[in-house]
């Protein structure tokens, strides 16, 4: 549509130019013609190409220019049609008014002008040879010409320049409505603050959650209404307040670690997601937070973990008894059984031990997921721990007929005295021992011949422990999932070896808890290297 209008307007412009060319009488050197001709052409070009986008941008100068050009056009009409009393003058006025009212001013004015000029010119030249402006009526002509411009200008102003304003107000109204509607429909509490940390909006659920009425809460500091507490039930500080973070960094942040103290001192565990808001120019204006009361989920998770924990504890005694009885049945000094029964009992014994291990792993997992592990960090020398654990695991390796070597930055501790370099890390020693035991145990379990090498190396900031084996190796596909919960490489071998599918998951969680990472490199049939690194404590 706009293309058609534009093309039409351009065609009209060309037509008007041609008309002017033919009407230009070299004999009749009226000054008005010299002034008006370029003005009308300019007005055409302006109306066609520039006026609308400029007016849309609310440049009022653009309006005055339009007014000026309409005046020029009116002058031309008056000149060509023989004065203000000509019938074509009111036609012109009606046309520009209609054009202005309908909002197609450029189109209508040009079309109308062409019609007026064309028809008026032909009729005038037929009816009279007198084409000259009557000089005596000059003041009334000027008034009429300006009046034409005013009509166009005021129509435009009252109908169209007001319309955008009305539209803005209407938009604002409806966007406020939408906002209210949306906020009202969101079942989770929503709160908005400005950059001065004052509350500017709160939906119904937010009012319920906090126990504050919107009217009371408005313009209060958010931390007066949203009394957030951290995991240790302490008030938040700049460092762990998500609102402060967002106001400062203009980046969204979320947390599920905070609790909220309502006006009547009720506690709710929260999931909170805060995002920055900005104005049209992208300047930060505050923050919007969506909160969710996750007390129930948290309680459920806690109950679940407690159940796992209690169940695992309670089952330990009977499992120990089962293991004990089987063990005694297997003991030739205590019981007489035939070979077949021994075979069955060996399997039963293996399963009982597996069950015991599973309890331990389930307990570890429920604690890790509950974030319930007491942070028992202490600085210790990991070299000593590696030596200690691998010395213990050496027995297991020897039982399987493979060798376990420990290398500390190239040194070999098979020799009697080794001065191990000190690598201090800040972690729970018994947890790291659990990780080490787990990884070395795996290496031994899946290596039938060859050896397992435990290596310690360090750079400026990390100490890395690598456990190489010459075992079966792991396919690339399995490597990706190895550290996931309950993931087990599905093969004859893993079923035979037993395992809970939790060991590596626990290892990853523990190592990551202390700021480290764990990974695996492996090629099938050649062996695997499991490694983890922990940040070094600077001495």
């Amino acid at each position, binding site marked *: 549509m706009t293309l058609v209008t534009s093309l039409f307007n351009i065609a009209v412009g060309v037509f008007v130019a041609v008309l002017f060319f033919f009407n230009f009488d070299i004999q009749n050197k009226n000054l008005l013609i010299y002034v008006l001709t370029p003005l009308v052409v300019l007005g055409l070009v302006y109306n066609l190409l520039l006026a609308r986008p400029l007016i849309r941008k609310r440049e009022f100068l653009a309006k005055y220019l339009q007014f000026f050009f309409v005046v020029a056009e009116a002058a031309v009409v008056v000149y060509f049609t023989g004065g203000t009393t000509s019938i074509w003058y009111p036609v012109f006025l009606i046309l520009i008014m209609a054009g202005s009212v309908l909002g197609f001013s450029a189109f209508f004015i040009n079309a109308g002008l062409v019609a007026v000029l064309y028809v008026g010119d032909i009729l005038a030249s037929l009816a009279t040879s007198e084409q000259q402006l009557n000089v005596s009526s000059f003041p009334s002509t000027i008034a009429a010409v300006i009046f034409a411009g005013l009509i166009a200008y005021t129509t435009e102003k009252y109908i169209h320049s007001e319309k955008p304003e009305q539209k803005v107000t209407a938009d604002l109204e409806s966007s406020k409505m939408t906002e209210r509607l949306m906020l009202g429909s969101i079942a989770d509490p929503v709160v908005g603050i400005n950059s001065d940390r004052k509350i500017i909006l709160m939906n119904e659920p937010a009012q319920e959650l906090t126990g504050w009425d919107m009217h009371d809460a408005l313009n209060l500091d958010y931390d007066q209404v949203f009394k957030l507490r951290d995991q240790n039930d302490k008030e938040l500080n700049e460092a762990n307040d998500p609102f402060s973070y967002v106001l400062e960094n203009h980046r969204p942040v979320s947390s599920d670690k905070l609790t909220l103290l309502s006006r009547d001192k009720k506690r709710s565990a929260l999931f909170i997601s805060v995002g920055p808001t900005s104005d049209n120019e992208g300047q930060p204006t505050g923050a919007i937070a969506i909160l969710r009361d996750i007390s129930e989920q948290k309680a459920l998770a806690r109950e679940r973990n407690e159940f796992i924990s209690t169940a695992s*504890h*309670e*089952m*330990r*005694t*009977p*499992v*120990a*008894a089962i*293991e*004990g*009885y089987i*063990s*005694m049945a297997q*003991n030739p*000094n*205590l019981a007489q059984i035939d070979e077949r029964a021994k075979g069955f009992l060996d399997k039963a*014994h293996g399963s009982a*031990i597996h*069950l*015991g*291990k599973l*309890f*331990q792993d389930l*307990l570890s997992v429920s604690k890790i997921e509950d974030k319930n592990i*007491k942070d*028992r960090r202490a600085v210790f020398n990991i070299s000593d*721990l590696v*030596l*200690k*654990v691998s*010395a*213990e695991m*050496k*027995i*297991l390796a020897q039982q399987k007929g493979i060798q376990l070597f420990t290398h500390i930055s190239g040194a070999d501790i098979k020799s009697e005295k080794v001065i191990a370099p000190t690598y201090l890390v800040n972690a*729970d*020693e*018994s947890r790291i*021992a*659990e990780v*080490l*035991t787990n990884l070395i145990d795996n290496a031994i379990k899946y290596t039938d011949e060859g050896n397992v090498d435990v290596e310690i190396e360090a750079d400026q900031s990390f100490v890395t422990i690598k456990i190489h084996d010459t075992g079966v190796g792991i396919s690339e596909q399995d490597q990706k999932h190895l550290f996931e919960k309950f993931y087990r490489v599905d093969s004859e071998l893993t079923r035979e070896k037993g395992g809970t599918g939790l060991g590596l998951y626990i290892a990853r969680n523990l190592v990551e808890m202390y700021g480290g990472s764990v990974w695996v490199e492996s090629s099938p049939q050649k062996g695997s290297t499991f490694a983890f690194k922990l940040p070094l404590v600077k001495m």
Partner: protein
Amino acid sequence: MAKILLVEDDISLRDVYFARLQAEGFELAVASNGEEALAMAVKERPDLIVLDIMMPRISGFDVLDIVRTTPEIAHTKVIMMTALGSPTDKERGEKLGVDKYLVKSQVTLEDVVTTIKKVLEAPAGGSKEPVVGKPEQANAPQQTPPPAPQQPQGPAPQNPQAQ
């Protein structure tokens, strides 16, 4: 042969330990709760107490505490054998002066037997004060008992590096 007091409220498990340790030739006394355990300890004067923690009335921790503060039985060796596997519980036992802390179902019956023999063989004086004084040294990460329990005066159990 050494005398062992077995304190365990689970009948099956008590039965298992009793039979197995009897087969090793130990002299045995049993108790099924804390009160009974203390009475037996004073009466029987065992060399070693294998002690459960979660028992009705007096818990294993309390029993241990009382044993360690009762002069005539203060030097009795104590192995805790419990379902409580958390580091906090273990630390608590070590602070009270336990000689070895084992978690049920994490060690096999044979492991228990090996550990008992080893603790009994350890020098009498060497197992109390140092454990109380330096709990972190007893904080061995694994309960896997080293083999070769036959070596008299062998390496101290808390020093795996000696191997």
